[in-house]
């Protein structure tokens, strides 16, 4: 008896393993279990500027995911990868009144081909210009998100085709995903303060002319939490801080203490029509009696996007007259570029201020409107360059070939050196004193320190610096202030708050959210499941009813054996 029982047991075990392996392959593989995935998403910009509204006006999302290939997109969350992204697809989603759009960006932008990056950069302003009520989110790709995307794509593409049986089978095996964001609806942030920082080096003497150096420190991109702004304008800030360090050393010795005041200004809200600069000028020119800006400004030099390329452009709104300090600077720049760095192509770009435009082109136009002689130094030829408003503008890992814009530190160092040499030649009036073009001042102990610049750029690009994210207590502003305090005197903060009644700029919150992807099945699947369960229960019912057969069979099998005993 025992032998027989053990034999049955053994047979069962022997059979169960290969059988279970086959069933495992059949059952488990297509249904690869995925738990709810949670990931961070970054919302598209939403802001009002001078009464105009921009970006996506909505933050709430609770719909099922589809890829853009699906026929019906209305009230669905449309998922796109950067590689497949195009403006037509985006427009198609908006036209069909999609519930939301989620654009998946690669973790490492440098893996993307050049043309895709370029195309996306050019699209970014268009995405923002077309105001939409559809919430648009950006997510960084990871394995789970990719798998969700692939499954969504498979289920989306198979819709509307094939027979009923295929559709039924498909509903059982494929997964749908319900995308849900956790946050509330976006609302305007009241009383937001944009901080600007000012510091100075006072020259030796009375009633001296003043040179103003300006760079805006905020960054801008289609999603605030993804805008690192390495080149625009992390490079400008790095150059300005390095110049502050170099000239503070010169100004601390009596023999090199020059007859110019240097005023350094790090402006906030630069990407929002230079709000920080505007308020600073108003404070200095309209309200106070004595200010360096009110009397005898030699020129204002704005630094914008200097981290790459062998071009330097001096943007002016009217060509400088001969004999003016601006003209001197222009000539000195040409001399330094030609003599010390022949590979550098320098040119002047003239563009009149267009007051009919919504936004000003360059920062110097803010000063130009107030009749201060000003110009912008940049590697870009046009203010419309997409690099200035892109989330692709990131600090790339050195030594790695990148597609998008990035900061080349040797070139940044060279540009810094050119600007420093030029300024020194203007301040100490070296050309009139007969110095040759290849005289280098910033060498040896005074040289531009590349590692200093590296650490500055690294620090600036370590976190997003969008204006919406930097309030007056943020670590970036505090550290900038600390850094300026180290080298400059009279470091002051200037806060801009939008007017309550007629705000010039309004920011909105809910820019970073957690999104959950829940696996769901369509209603038809529940029906199908109910049918299967009913069938199973029916079989079970029959089995229990006919249990007597098994019992009788076992009895017949055992009975003769027992008699033999």
């Amino acid at each position, binding site marked *: 008896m025992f032998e027989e*029982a053990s034999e049955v047991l053994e047979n*069962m075990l022997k059979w169960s393993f290969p059988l279970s392996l086959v069933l495992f392959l059949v*059952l488990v593989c297509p249904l690869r*279990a995925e738990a709810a995935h949670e990931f961070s998403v970054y919302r598209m910009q939403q802001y009002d500027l001078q009464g105009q509204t921009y970006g996506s006006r909505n933050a709430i999302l609770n719909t099922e995911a589809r890829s853009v290939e699906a026929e019906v997109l209305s009230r669905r969350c449309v998922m796109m990868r950067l590689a497949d992204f195009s403006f037509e697809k985006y427009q198609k989603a908006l036209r069909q009144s999609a519930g939301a759009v989620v654009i998946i960006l690669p973790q490492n932008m440098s893996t993307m081909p050049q043309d895709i990056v370029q195309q996306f950069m050019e699209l970014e302003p268009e995405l923002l210009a077309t105001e939409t009520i559809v919430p648009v989110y950006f997510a960084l790709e990871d394995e789970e998100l990719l798998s969700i995307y692939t499954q969504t794509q498979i289920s989306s593409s198979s819709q509307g085709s094939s027979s009923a049986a295929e559709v039924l089978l498909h509903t059982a095996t494929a997964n749908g995903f319900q995308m849900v964001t956790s946050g509330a609806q976006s609302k305007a942030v009241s009383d937001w303060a944009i901080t600007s920082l000012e510091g100075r080096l006072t020259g030796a003497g009375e009633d001296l002319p003043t040179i103003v150096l300006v760079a805006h420190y905020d960054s801008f991109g289609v999603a605030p939490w993804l805008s690192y702004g390495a080149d625009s304008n992390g490079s400008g800030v790095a150059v300005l801080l390095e110049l502050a360090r170099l000239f503070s050393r010169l100004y601390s010795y009596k023999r090199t203490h020059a007859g110019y005041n240097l005023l350094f200004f790090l402006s906030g809200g630069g990407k929002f029509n230079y709000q920080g600069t505007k308020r600073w000028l108003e404070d200095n020119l309209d309200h106070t009696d004595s200010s360096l800006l009110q009397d005898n400004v030699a020129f204002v030099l704005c630094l914008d996007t200097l981290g790459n390329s062998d071009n330097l452009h001096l943007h002016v709104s009217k060509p400088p007259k001969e004999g003016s300090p601006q003209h001197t600077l222009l000539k000195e720049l040409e001399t330094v570029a030609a003599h010390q760095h022949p590979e550098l192509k320098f040119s002047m770009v003239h563009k009149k201020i267009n007051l009919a435009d919504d936004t000003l082109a360059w920062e110097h136009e803010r000063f130009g409107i107030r009749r201060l002689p000003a110009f912008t130094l940049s590697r870009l030829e046009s203010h419309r360059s997409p690099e200035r408003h892109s989330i692709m503008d990131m600090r790339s890992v050195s030594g790695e070939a990148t597609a998008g814009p990035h900061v080349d530190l040797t070139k940044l160092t060279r540009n810094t050196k050119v600007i420093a040499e030029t300024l020194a030649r203007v301040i100490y009036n070296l050309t009139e004193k007969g110095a040759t073009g290849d005289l280098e001042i910033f060498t040896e102990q005074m040289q531009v320190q590349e590692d200093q610049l590296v650490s500055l750029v690294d620090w600036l690009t370590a976190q997003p610096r969008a204006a919406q994210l930097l309030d007056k207590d943020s670590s970036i502003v505090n550290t900038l202030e600390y850094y300026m305090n180290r080298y400059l005197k009279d470091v002051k903060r200037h806060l801009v708050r939008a007017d309550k009644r007629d705000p010039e700029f309004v920011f909105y919150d809910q820019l970073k959210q957690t999104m959950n992807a829940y*696996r769901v099945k369509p209603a038809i699947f*529940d029906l199908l499941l109910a049918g299967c369960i009913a069938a199973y229960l029916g079989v079970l019912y029959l089995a229990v009813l006919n249990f007597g057969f*098994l019992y009788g069979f076992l009895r017949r099998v055992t009975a003769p054996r*027992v008699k033999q005993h």
Partner: protein
Amino acid sequence: MTLFHFGNCFSLAYFPYFITYKCSGLSEYNAFWRCVQAGATYLFVQLCKMMFLATFFPTWEGGAGVYDFVGEFMKATVDMADLLGLHLVMSKNAGKGEYKIMVAAMGWATAELIMSRCIPLWVGARGIEFDWKYIQMSFDSNISLVHYIAMAAVVWMFTRYDLPKSFRLPVTVLLGLCVYKGFLMELFVHVFLLGSWTALLVKALLTGAISLCSLFLFVTLVHSN
């Protein structure tokens, strides 16, 4: 998912119990209150087990992912109390062997179903996320019904004083298998890295084998006299 999905899982979990109760003729014996008593015994035994485990097996604080073989084995040994409990239920009821076995097993399994699966199903299957594990849990409850019937039968055979000598060994082996089935399953899953569906299948096959063997022994024993 939806309430409908919960309904699906619920019916998959509960209807087999109902069918078994109706078709095995228990309803004709007015055995409902006896089943409830058996369920109450189940609760009492589980409470005792919990107290015992909490007292003598404090949570093991080993590294994550390390399988505490001895600890798990000792914990499984505590499940011997289930056998005692089943014996207690059966010894209180007078009647034929099948009747005693069915009452004890039905009460026992139903109590387990209500206590350990009702709330997870209610909370989980109605949630927004779809997961096969609730369907698996419902199948698992079907398997555990068969498991408890077989276990009750083996306990009944073991406690008979007229059990032939040749039966002693297989019945004891089956008893051991019943008690350590959960432990064996865990071990399988751990060693062979089984997926959830495969684990369920292996469990079903193992339970089927045990119950077939015990049915075999039961039939031989009942009809040998």
